[in-house]
Structures are given as C-alpha cells and as structure tokens.
C-alpha cells in the first residue's frame, strides 16, 4: 500500500488520547483493560480530560492512574468514596471518578460506599465486579457466587456459612439520593456497547452537576477463576448474569 493511499484514509479506530501509551499489567482476558478503554474513549469524546481526577482503589486496578493521562489519586482500601468526597468538595467543577473493585467497594469499603451514595455526592462510581480478589491471589469476594471455589472458599462458597453474594445495585437502590444505577457487563461486544452507554450517562450526570451515579460492571478474571479468557467470558454469561441481572435500575 502506498503512503498516499494511507493519507486518504480516515482514522476510524485508535488509542484514546486519554489513555497512556504504555503496556498494562492486566492479565489476558481481564475486563479492566476493556473498561479502561471505554472510559478513556468517553473522556476524549466528552472533552473532559483536563477536568478529571481519577481515584484508584487498592486491588488490581490500583495502577489505573498510570494508564490515564489525567490527575490520579490513590485511596486506601475501600476509602475511594471518602477520598472522592474530599476532592469533590474542594473542586465541585472537576470530574471525580472513583474506580473500585468488589472487595474494595462492597467489603472493606461498604460504609464509605453506602454513605457517599446516601449523601448524593456528585461523583461517578465505577464498580468492577469480578466475583473474586484478583490482586491478592483469588480469595473469596463479597460478590463470589454460591459454591464458587476460591483460595479462601476451597470447598465452594457456602451461603449457610458466609452468606449470599451481595448485589450492590439493589443495595444502593434502597437509598433516596442516587440518580443513576445500572448493571452492565463486558463479556461480549453487545454488553460492552451497553456498558459504554451507561458509563457515558454516569459521566454526563456529573458534568451537569446532578448527583451520584453508579455503574456496576460484571467483568472477567480468568486468572483468578482458573479458566481461559473465553471460558471467563462464558462464565459471566452463564453464572454471573443469572444472579446479577443486567439493566438499568434507576435513571432520574
């Protein structure tokens, strides 16, 4: 192909400008990199890169701040909503995005999650639910499914002993303040497109200063689950979605 011909072509797909040009540490088949890409694309499309402050959690996505060309803030395990609250109260005109995993958001940080939502903090919370603690080596998460085998539930999660997995969206839906609550998934193209739509809504709500918005994204952790990437995507469809139904729960 001659170079003149290339010049004539229109760029239809490329690395988002908000995404740093560096290799990510995520495992093959992990959902984090997909969500990162969607978020970076939206930051570009909405032209908010220079206004964003990303709060990264403790967990696999702790290094997220290296992957986005935006200001980044680390939060102690579970404390992202509190840190985001402090940031937003100082900079009400900036975009404060808390990106959290299931152990972070729904175990050690349950209080911060519920109360930031209940105050109606004008932040965007992105919740990655992959039903396991990935970074620490595959321990049981508050969202691990019944009978799911993990490092700390080697005989399978026994709901009679440790309870049923928690549904974050439904829990937050009992509160008055949240504006937007939706559960999505990134296990296939169709679901990923819907995820991007929900993420956009979550960001738009903050741009317009309306209030607290929450998106839960069912995501794959093939390494933590001990399966191949394809099996991981299938497990989201076959095991997770039946317990965690996709769809919008609230949109005010």
């Amino acid at each position: 192909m001659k170079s003149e011909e290339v010049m004539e072509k229109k760029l239809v797909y490329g690395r988002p400008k908000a995404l740093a040009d560096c290799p990510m540490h995520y495992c093959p088949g992990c959902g984090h990199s997909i969500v990162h890409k969607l978020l970076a694309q939206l930051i570009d499309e909405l032209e908010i890169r220079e206004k964003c402050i990303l709060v990264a959690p403790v967990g696999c996505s702790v290094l997220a701040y290296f992957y986005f060309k935006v200001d980044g803030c680390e939060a102690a395990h579970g404390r992202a909503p509190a840190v985001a609250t402090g940031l937003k109260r100082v900079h009400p005109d900036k975009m404060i995005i808390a990106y959290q995993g299931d152990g972070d958001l729904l175990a050690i940080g349950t209080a911060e999650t519920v109360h930031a939502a209940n105050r109606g903090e004008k932040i965007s919370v992105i919740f990655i639910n992959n039903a396991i603690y990935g970074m620490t080596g595959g321990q049981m998460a508050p969202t691990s499914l019944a009978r799911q085998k993990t490092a700390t539930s080697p005989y399978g999660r026994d709901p009679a002993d440790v309870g049923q997995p928690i549904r974050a969206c439904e829990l937050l839906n009992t509160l008055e303040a949240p504006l937007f609550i939706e559960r999505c998934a990134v296990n296939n193209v169709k679901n990923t497109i819907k995820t991007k739509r929900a993420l956009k809504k979550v960001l738009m709500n903050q741009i317009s200063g309306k209030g607290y918005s929450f998106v839960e994204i069912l995501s794959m952790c093939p390494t933590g689950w001990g399966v191949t990437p394809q099996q991981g995507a299938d497990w989201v469809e076959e095991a997770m979605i039946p317990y965690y139904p996709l769809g919008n729960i609230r949109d005010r």
Partner: protein
Amino acid sequence: MAEKVLMKGNEALAESAIIAGCRHYFAYPITPQNEIPAYMARRMPQIDGTFIQAESEIAAINMVFGASAAGARAMTSSSSPGISLKQEGISYLSGAGLPAVVVNIMRGGPGLGNISGSQADYSQATRGGGHGDYRMIVLAPSSVQEMANLTIKAFDLADEYRIVVMILGDGFLGQISEPLTLPNPSGRSFNKASWALTGAAGREPHLVMSLRLSPEEALEKVNLALQEKYRVITEREKRFETYLGDDADYLLVGFGTAARICKGAVNSLRRQGVKAGLFRPISLWPFPHEELKAASRRVKKLLVVEMNSGQMLEDIRLALYASGDADSSPSSAEIDFYGKMGGTVPQIEEIIERVISYEK
C-alpha cells in the same frame, strides 16, 4: 489590642482553624471533642466552607486525604479511640506527602476507657501511630490561648513540610473555658501548584500516591527523603518552654494539662523557698532532647509528671542518658515520676509534697 473572648478550648481551636484558612473539616462525634464538630457545623456554612459529619473516623480522615490532595487546608478531630481508627489514613497521608491537621483531644484508655482527660496517646502520637516509618509533628498546648495559637502554626507547618501535624490536647483542655485573644492569620502562603490535583489542564498529570512497588528504586528513596525531611524538622521545629529553670534544684517536666499543674506547684514551692522550675515540651515530636539535657545538668533531680504510665518518661531517659548527640556525656540528674491514669489530673499537693521530700 485585640479583644479578649471567653471560649472553650475546643471552640477556640475550631475558630483558629477557620482563621488559618481551613474550609474543609470532616469528623465523627466522640467525647470529649464534640464541641469542635458542633462549632464547625455552625460556622462552615456561614463562610462557604465544608463540614461533613462522616460515617466513621476512617471516612473522615480519608475525606481529609481527598481535600488535601486537592490542595485545600483540611482538618479532622477526634479523641483517642477515634484516633486509633484514623491511623491507617494518617499513614497514607504521610506516605503520599500530604499536609493535614489532625486533632486528638485525648481521653482515658485503653479500650473505651472513659471520657475524661488523659495523656495516654503520647507514644502513639510521637511514634507515628500507624504502619510504616513515619512521624507526625506533634504539638501539645497547655492553655486555651495556646490551643488557638498552635492551630495557626499547625497549618503552616503541615503545608511547609507536607506532613501531618497533630494537635495533642486532652479532655480538660478541650472543655475548659478561658479568656483568649483570637490569633491573626500567619499571612504565610504555600504554593501547591506542583503537586495538587486540580485536573491536568495544560500540564502533565499529577499523581498522589504512596504505592512504590520497586524496593530499591522507589520505596527506599521515598523513605530516605522522608527521613531527611524529619531530620530537618528535628533541627528547626523544636518547641518548649522553661519556667524558673535557671536556678532550679528540682525541675518538673510535663506537657499539656500536666504542665499547668506543674507550673502551679512550682509557684507554690518557690513561695516555700524550694527552688523548683518547669520544663515543658511543646513539640512532643520533635522532642527537645538536647535542650532538656542541658537544663537537667543544672538541677539535682527531675520530676516527670504525666497523665499516663510514663510514656514521655522514655523520651526523657533517652534525652538525659543517650550519648548519640553533640553533647555526648550523659546527664547525672536523677529522674522521678508521678503519673495518673484514671482520667484525673495529678494533684498539686502531691507534686509539692514529693518535691519537698527530696529536700529531706
């Protein structure tokens, strides 16, 4: 001359934080510091500031983390059990190099203890308190006026060194009402543009973090830089008061509320012809080691008075008997100790009696 006002210690501290430019305050209720959040709840809306009653002390200190990372002057306050909960956040603030002011109006412990005043968090405060190799600057006021003045100073020190500054008061200081002159702002300003999170507009992104995965390249360097900062602070920021110490035979040593009582004892002893004096550390970290050692050389005996089991006593032994400093020969002064741990103050009569017994 500025007008005197009558205020509780907790309220004087809160108003002084506002004078210092603090517009972001986050806390959870706990006795005996409840006047601070109540005062802030009333005042912050009047001055376009933020007060949030957080869901926990843990959330409050992390809101401080966020506000400080955003470049604002931020404060939280609590009392002993609540300060234990904040330790994780204080360690993260220290690791990330964020300024913050944390107030501990100490109460009796361990556990739930009681709601009366105590000084039993000295060791926790002066050794950092949480995990990792870090220190806070710890300031110990002994009057309502000093609670106000040191609050102004605390915000400046926090910003100057990007460090957590703890104001270590106790339930008595928090609750007593005394006339004071509200302090003026220091007038100092600190440029945070090189690190604060404000959105990466026209500049490279800023990161506020304490994770340093590479041992030699990153974490060792960060810790070496922290230790260097602590060395500079130790050199420059020691604070203490001596009272009738020059010709004293007996030197009382105490901080905060205990030092107030010691001062009364010194005055009474002097009237009885006993040459007593007082050495009062104001910065508990950095501790005025060399200064106390020098003062101890002139006296026969030290009486350390604390509202705990003798936590500062350990620093005093280090000060007098250590040989690592410039003045390397140990002091020969003896040390006696008198402590109260039940949430009560040391009795002035007992201090006087004890000092008089040294004469026999």
